[in-house]
């Protein structure tokens, strides 16, 4: 009798262990929540923006209508983490290249140096096109402000290597402008997990 009891506990713990390894079918909506006038939940939302990409096109919220996208912050002359995060963004780009429901958006945190021409050259050397991956420049204050909405950091800092400070975070935004996942863009293993999250989001109806 006792054996059966122990056996059932072992089985139960096994099942629980399995369950914790299962990936969730949906991703949470991240950020602060608020309660609206009708009592409904208001989720953190990426605000309106408008920047210019490597092909001189205006890129705004409408550019991502009905699509998910991965956002990050970088600059071309960055001597520290940017090449690593760009390499991981490139991995994501290559993996989801044929899925029209995912785009990429890289914001320059040094827009006064990263002109349209400079971004165009950078993108061309990476072998990517603006229809899949926008590299944007624009008003520096607006870019730094929107970094906060992506739970990222961007600031000009003469003491930082290259003169600009920013995080290497990659942020996943859904078609409703909600942040659904993020990762450390300098850590390939964290990006592996992030790519599974992207697939989970793309599988959502």
């Amino acid at each position, binding site marked *: 009798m006792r054996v059966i009891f122990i056996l059932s506990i072992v089985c139960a713990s096994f099942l629980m262990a399995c369950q914790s390894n299962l990936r969730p079918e949906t991703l949470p909506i991240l950020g602060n929540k608020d309660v609206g006038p009708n009592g409904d939940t208001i989720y953190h939302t990426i605000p309106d923006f408008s920047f210019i990409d490597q092909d001189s096109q205006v890129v705004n919220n409408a550019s991502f209508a009905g699509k998910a996208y991965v956002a990050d912050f970088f600059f071309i002359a960055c*001597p520290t983490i940017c090449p690593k995060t760009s390499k991981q963004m490139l991995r994501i780009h290559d993996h989801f290249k044929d899925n029209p429901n995912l785009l990429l958006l890289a914001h320059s945190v040094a827009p006064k140096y990263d002109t349209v021409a400079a971004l165009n050259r950078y993108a061309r050397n990476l072998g990517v096109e603006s229809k899949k991956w926008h590299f944007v420049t624009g008003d520096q204050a607006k870019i730094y402000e929107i970094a906060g909405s992506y739970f990222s950091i961007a600031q000009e800092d003469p003491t930082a290597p290259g003169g600009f400070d920013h995080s290497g975070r990659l942020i996943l935004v859904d078609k409703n402008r909600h942040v659904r996942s993020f990762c450390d863009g300098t850590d390939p293993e964290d990006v592996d997990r992030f790519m599974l999250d992207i697939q989970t989001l793309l599988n959502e109806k």
Partner: protein
Amino acid sequence: MRNKIIVLCFAIGVFCFSCETQTYEHGKLLYTNFCENCHMADGTGLKGLIPPLAGADFLKNSPEAVPCIIRAGYKGKMTVNGKEYDTEMAGIERLTEFEITNIINYIHTSWGNNLPIVQHPDVREQLKACEKNTKPF
């Protein structure tokens, strides 16, 4: 007695083996700190922006230029494995001749690279004529 000999042989074996695989640990550490952000942990670089070090013909064809590039940086076009690159590289002036030698030897023996080991006196000579931002070759 016999047991002791066996243990001793085993210890020597392990010692030799570990020497062989860790010769350029110092170079590896310096590589991680100073080079890896751009050239990547696996030496593959970044597509058309940053040239690879793994399997790079430049290392084989122009070894005498490498110490100066590490110290003074590089500006202008460079062709590696038939592909043209044009991203400026910042030099790392604080590295000593010994440190540069160790980095090069780590690069020369990693990721399938099988290039000759460089010696400190040669690196010292090559650094003598080194000026900031080497002209294109």
